[in-house]
Every structure is written in structure tokens, then in C-alpha cells.
């Protein structure tokens, strides 16, 4: 018997390792109060997670998140367990599905870009209408990245007596590469083209939108005008070489000084950036103005870093960035900022070690360093009492300044009215067309149905009849999940349908934040003591309340038998808090009233043994965050 065991072991060791099957994961994210009270679903391909969210104007839109970030947002900060159902697929099916989801994302993004452009036309023509009635400085156009050099309301950029050496270097490079008259000639040509430019609304609605077809539209008036004005501003900045404004740069005094190797990498990056900016000044790309302005600002920042021996970056926050949401209590706020600062410091150090270690430094990598440094400095400033601004998700900094010299001539009043009417009509028609494709419907088009529609399109083609897509699904996924005429539009029901019908090879659960913490706390004191302490929002150490949470007292996610009783208590707390909110309305603008009302509302299902509200977190312990990946 022993010999048999040894033989089997030897055979196992000798056998070639079977190739791991490819796996896609269907995720069911548990409900919580807020936007996703019915739960949520997503499809995961390794480090990319695709899902659909309802957005403004009743549309549902695809998102793609990095998997670690998705887990942090939903399982930890959102305090919602993520249940993964692992589906085995062939390499070909994996690639087909991934292609289908990526294509849909890119197509949809391009379609939304078009909507933004049409809305931009309306805004531009409204501005054109105001030109005849308002004084010039109040009629202006935002120019991305111009605020690093110019103040709001600027006109043509005047020559600078004592200009920026970094920009003067680029200007000299442009003269050497393209001729000494190149800059003045291109500026004159741009001004001439703008002097005859008139806004014209879109007349032709263009081809019908499709979920799988990338739109190919000509630039609208606002896109064209903005590109020209940004190009003109960038070239004028290059020609006059102003210094960056004092508030444009941030010195990373909270981080270690640059070492010799980091300085060498940054120095090489600056040299390459100079060359790239020389080429960009002559680019035929219509939208070269913004990258040129941003690049000039970054060049000044890198030169400043090399001069002072510390990281120096452009301030990425917009001039009018609102305040970030923070915990209201002083102690909570201090704890929160300490945790966020600690994590950002660690991420910043990791990025430096990884990206400033090897040449060449790519622009995308520089952007990562710039973003993380900005956010760390913002948090550290907040710990010293300064306001913390809300950041946006766009990777590139684009602090805009408004240009008051519009160059293009005004239109006659009748012409403006006609074009504005047409522009509004075009934007409304396009929005309606988007609604046809992506209009949210509780039963027929939600986050569940869109996942399966995208799977069907990826496997069988967008226009395949139902029988064909069902056959493709059976062949490639092992079965079919129907969404029409079933309850599968409900996230938790759809997860069960996936488990029943597809070729499932396993299940996995990413616990919620509180589940993790309660497990970790189990051995720290007597079980009854931990259970009692962690059961209320006032005493729990496993709850760092998000400013968005409703008012409640008792957690009901861990207890079933006592849930109606706890729900009744929560209902009374919500009502009482809402009543108090009536009195505090003038001070908190209805925030407490809203929290109380929502608290009462989310207590109702608890009366019937159903838990939705779990509490979400303003912050989590940094050690719970995923470790940065190494090369």
C-alpha cells in the first residue's frame, strides 16, 4: 500500500502539469444602501473588471475598472461581499469575450464623446449669443492647461521680458528644426483661419448608432474651435515663453529628495520632452495645442525639480475644484487622513522605485508619478489644516484658464439664433438616439441584461438571432442564461442562473470589510463582548462611517433572528434623526434630514428579515489594501 502511494506520488510529480483552463468570473456584488440597493453584477477577465452603471439622463453605461481597485471600492469601502462564479472557457472563447467587452467599451466611449461635442456646440453658441450683450471679459472660453501660465480672462499672450529658460530652449529648438519664422508664421495662419471662422451647427444626424460600430463623425464646431484656440494659445505661450505661475507648481517637500539616479532619469526625460515639444509645435494633429501647453508646463516642473533636488509637479487640481467629502468629526477626520496619507506615501514610494529606476521614463509613467504626488501633497496639506480638493478621474492634468480674446468674429443675431436652434435640435436628437441604444430599463436593460447582451454579441455577433446566440453560448460557455421573461434581471438570481447553466469550475467570495474585521476581532476578546460592541454604529470598531451613509443604530447583516427587532429600532432612529434634521436644515442644507429619511427607508426591509444596509466606509486600514504589483 505504501509502495502504491509512493508510485502514485512519483507519477503525479512526473506527469506534465496540465494547462490551467482559462476562466472568466461572473461577479455578484451584494446589496447595500445607496445606488446599488438591488446588488450589482460584473464580468471579470483577470485584472480587468467590466460592469454597467446607470448614469444621468437614464442611460446605462459600461465601465472597466482595474480589478484591485474594483475590490477596494465595492468589497472594502462599499462593504459589500463579492461572490465570484468561475466559468471555464477555451482560449478562443476568452479572447472573443474580452474583445467583445473591450470593443463595446471603446465604441460607447466614442459615442459619448460625440454627445459631449454636441452639447459643446450648444454651449458655444450660447456664448456667441452673449457676446452681443455682455462685456468682453465675461465672455471667454476655457483653454486646457493654460492656467499653468496665464490668469483667467487673458487675451493674446504678451512678450515676456524675463521669460522661462525651459520654454526658450524649446523655442530655439523649433527655430532650428523648422525655421526661424515658423512660429510667427503658424500663429499668423491660425489667427487668419480663426478670423474667418463662424460656428455652424450640425445639420446631418449622421449614420444610425450601433452598439458594435465605432462612430466616425466630422468634428463639430465646438471641437474645431476649441482645438484652434488651444493651438493658438500654446504657440503664443511658446513664442513669449512666460514663466509658470507660482501656484502652478507643487514641491514634494513631504517626500525624500531625488537621488542621483532619479535625477539622471528625470534629466533624460526632460531632454526627450524638449525634442517631443519641438515636433509637437509642427504637428498636423488638429488638437496639438493642449499637449503642447501641458508639455511646456511639465518641462518647467521637471527643470524645477532638477534645480531643487526634489520632485516638483504641476498642480493637477482644477482652479474651481470643490472640497472633497471628509468625515465631519475632528478625530475621525484625523484618523482618516493619517490612513490615506500612509497609503499614498507607500504608493508614491513604490512608483518612484519602479518608474524612476529605469530609462526611458514614458509619459504615461510620469503621469502616474505626477498624480500620486499631487494627491499625497493634498492629503498632507489637509493634515496641516488646509482644504482638500476633490479630484477627478481624468489621468491628465488640465487646469484651464479662460481666454477672453475669442479671435473669431461675432455672428449676426439672427444667424446665432438659427444655429443655436439647430445645435439644440442636433444634441437632443443624438441624446434620444443614445437612449434607444442604452436607455435604462428596470427589467429589460439593466446591469445584468447588458452583461448577457454583450456576451451574446461577442460570441455570435451583434445581429445574430436568438437561436444562434443561444447555440453559440451552449457551445462555448456550456449553457444559456436567458434574461427575457425570467427573473434573471435581478443580480442575485442571475448569479444562480450562471451557476446552474454555464460550465462552472468553482466559486470564490471576496468578503466585505466588516466580515474581514469581525473575523480578525474574534480572537481579541470574549465573543459576547466583541459581538455586542460591533453590533452598534456607536461602538463598533469595524465601522468608519462614510459621509454618505444614512442614520441607523444597529447592524443587521450578521443577525437574522433579531433582524425585525433591530429594524424597528433603526426605523425609530431614522425617523428621530430626520425630525432633528428639520431643525438643522438651515445649517446642514438638509443633509441630516436626508440621512434620517434614508435611514427609515432602509429599515423597512429589515422588518421583513431582509438586510440591505450594511454601512459603508470612509476609510479602511491601509494594510487591507492590495499590495502594489512588481515588474
Amino acid at each position, binding site marked *: 500500500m505504501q509502495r502504491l502511494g509512493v508510485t502514485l506520488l512519483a507519477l503525479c510529480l512526473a506527469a506534465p502539469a496540465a494547462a490551467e483552463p482559462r476562466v472568466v468570473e461572473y461577479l455578484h456584488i451584494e*446589496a447595500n444602501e*445607496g*445606488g446599488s*440597493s*438591488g446588488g450589482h*453584477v460584473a464580468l471579470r477577465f483577470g*485584472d480587468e473588471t467590466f460592469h454597467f452603471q*446607470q*448614469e444621468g439622463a437614464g442611460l446605462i*453605461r459600461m*465601465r472597466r475598472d*482595474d480589478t*484591485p481597485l474594483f475590490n477596494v471600492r465595492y468589497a472594502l*469601502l462599499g462593504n459589500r461581499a463579492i461572490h465570484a462564479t468561475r466559468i471555464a472557457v477555451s482560449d478562443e472563447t476568452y479572447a472573443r469575450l474580452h474583445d467583445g467587452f*473591450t*470593443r463595446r467599451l*471603446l465604441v460607447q466611449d*466614442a459615442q459619448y*464623446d460625440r454627445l459631449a461635442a454636441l452639447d459643446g456646440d450648444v454651449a458655444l453658441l450660447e456664448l456667441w449669443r452673449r457676446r452681443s450683450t455682455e462685456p468682453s471679459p465675461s465672455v471667454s472660453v476655457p483653454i486646457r492647461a493654460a492656467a499653468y501660465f496665464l490668469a483667467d480672462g487673458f487675451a493674446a499672450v504678451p512678450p515676456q521680458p524675463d521669460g522661462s529658460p525651459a520654454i526658450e530652449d524649446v523655442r530655439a529648438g523649433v527655430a532650428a528644426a523648422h525655421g526661424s519664422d515658423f512660429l510667427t508664421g503658424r500663429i499668423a495662419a491660425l489667427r487668419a483661419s480663426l478670423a474667418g471662422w463662424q460656428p455652424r451647427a450640425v445639420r446631418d444626424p449622421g449614420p444610425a448608432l450601433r452598439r458594435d*460600430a*465605432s462612430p*466616425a463623425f466630422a468634428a463639430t464646431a465646438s471641437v474645431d474651435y476649441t482645438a484652434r484656440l488651444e493651438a493658438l494659445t500654446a504657440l503664443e505661450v511658446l513664442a513669449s515663453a512666460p514663466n509658470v505661475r507660482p501656484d502652478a507648481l507643487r514641491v514634494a517637500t513631504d517626500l525624500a529628495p531625488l537621488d542621483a539616479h532619479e535625477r539622471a532619469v528625470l534629466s533624460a526625460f526632460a531632454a526627450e520632452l524638449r525634442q*517631443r515639444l519641438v*515636433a*509637437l509645435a509642427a504637428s*498636423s*494633429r*488638429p488638437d496639438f495645442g*493642449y*499637449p503642447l501647453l501641458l*508639455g511646456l508646463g511639465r518641462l518647467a516642473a521637471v527643470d524645477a525639480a532638477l534645480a531643487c533636488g526634489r520632485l516638483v509637479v504641476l498642480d493637477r487640481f482644477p482652479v474651481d475644484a470643490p472640497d472633497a467629502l471628509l468625515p465631519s468629526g475632528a478625530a475621525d477626520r484625523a484618523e*482618516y487622513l493619517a490612513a*490615506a496619507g500612509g*497609503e*499614498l506615501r507607500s*504608493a508614491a514610494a*513604490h*512608483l518612484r522605485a*519602479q518608474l524612476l529606476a529605469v530609462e526611458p521614463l*514614458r*509619459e504615461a*509613467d510620469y*503621469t*502616474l508619478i505626477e498624480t500620486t504626488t499631487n494627491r499625497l501633497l493634498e492629503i498632507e496639506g489637509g493634515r496641516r489644516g488646509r482644504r482638500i480638493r*476633490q*479630484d477627478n*478621474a481624468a*489621468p*491628465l492634468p488640465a487646469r484651464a484658464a479662460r481666454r477672453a480674446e475669442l479671435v473669431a468674429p461675432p455672428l449676426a443675431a439672427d444667424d446665432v439664433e438659427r444655429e443655436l436652434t439647430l445645435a439644440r435640435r442636433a444634441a437632443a436628437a443624438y441624446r434620444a438616439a443614445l437612449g434607444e441604444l442604452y436607455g435604462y430599463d*428596470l427589467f429589460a436593460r*439593466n446591469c*445584468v441584461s447588458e452583461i448577457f447582451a454583450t456576451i451574446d454579441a461577442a460570441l455570435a455577433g451583434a445581429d445574430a438571432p436568438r437561436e444562434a446566440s443561444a447555440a453559440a453560448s451552449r457551445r462555448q460557455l456550456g449553457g444559456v442564461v436567458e434574461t427575457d421573461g425570467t427573473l434573471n434581471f*435581478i443580480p442575485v438570481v442571475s448569479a444562480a442562473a450562471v451557476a446552474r447553466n454555464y460550465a462552472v469550475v468553482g466559486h470564490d467570495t471576496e468578503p466585505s470589510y466588516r466580515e474581514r474585521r469581525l473575523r480578525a476581532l474574534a480572537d481579541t476578546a470574549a465573543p459576547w463582548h466583541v459581538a455586542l460592541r460591533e453590533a452598534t454604529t456607536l461602538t463598533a470598531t469595524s465601522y468608519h462611517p462614510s459621509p454618505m451613509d444614512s442614520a441607523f443604530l444597529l447592524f443587521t447583516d450578521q443577525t437574522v433572528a433579531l433582524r425585525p427587532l433591530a429594524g424597528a429600532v433603526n426605523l425609530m432612529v431614522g425617523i428621530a434623526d430626520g425630525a432633528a434634521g428639520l431643525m438643522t436644515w438651515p445649517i446642514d442644507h438638509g443633509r441630516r434630514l436626508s440621512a434620517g429619511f434614508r435611514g427609515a427607508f432602509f429599515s423597512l*426591509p429589515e422588518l*421583513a428579515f431582509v438586510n440591505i444596509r450594511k454601512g459603508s466606509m470612509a476609510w479602511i486600514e*491601509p494594510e487591507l*489594501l*492590495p499590495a*502594489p504589483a512588481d*515588474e
Partner: protein
Amino acid sequence: MRRIVLLVGALWLPVATGCLSSSESISKSISSPFEWSSASSASSRSSSRGRESYRDDVRDYTAAYVQSGGDYTTFTRGVSSVAAKHGVSDWESDDDTYEGIGAGLRKANQTPAQLSVWQQNLTGGDAHKTAAIQDGYDSYKPR
């Protein structure tokens, strides 16, 4: 009692089955500073993975665009948009852009003759960029 249950049920149905945007912070702005650290940690994944992801997106955008019948005149605006999402503003100076475009043209089943037209229109004859497009085209393995 039955009426109350029905009323509560009707009130809850849209909420209990919906999957709204979990918050504005996820889709449009990162309002919670704690998410900054999470985002930075996630972004600090390896540089090579970031490059691959950028090339793949340019490839897939190019393939979708070409298969949809678009020509090069409006193509570059979309490239700017894809590049910006990856932290790249000056995509003309990034070889990964051209390799991604080349791979996308192959993925869209463009013939070598069609490839040459795209190369000429996109690079203005720049040998380095032309070669990068060719590399992407040659290295893409169709399914």
C-alpha cells in the same frame, strides 16, 4: 395589512432590483481621498502591463473604427481620447501608439496595400513611425 405589504413591495421593487451608479465618485470624480490611495495602488501595477494595456486599447479602437467603415480623417481624434485615458497626451511620440494602430489594422483584416495607405496618411512618411505600424501589423496573430 396585505395592502401595506403590497405598497412596501411596490415601493421597494425598483430599489431592490436596480443597479444604479454606486456613486458619482466612481464614474466622474474621485471624491473620497481614500479612493486616491486605492487608485494609486492599483495604478502602480507594472509599467509593462500599462504599456500592453495601452497598445491593446489602441489596437481595439483601430480595429473597431476601421471595421465600422471610418477613414483616417476623423480617426486621430479617437486616438487622442484613448491615449488620454492612459495618461498619454502626446501620442504621436509614443511608439506604442503606432504598434497598436498596426495591430488594429491587421485585426481589421486590412490588406498590405491598405496598410500602406494608412501608414502614409498617419505618419507623413516618417520612417520610424511607419516601421512601428508595420511591427504591430506583423506581430498581431489573428484568432
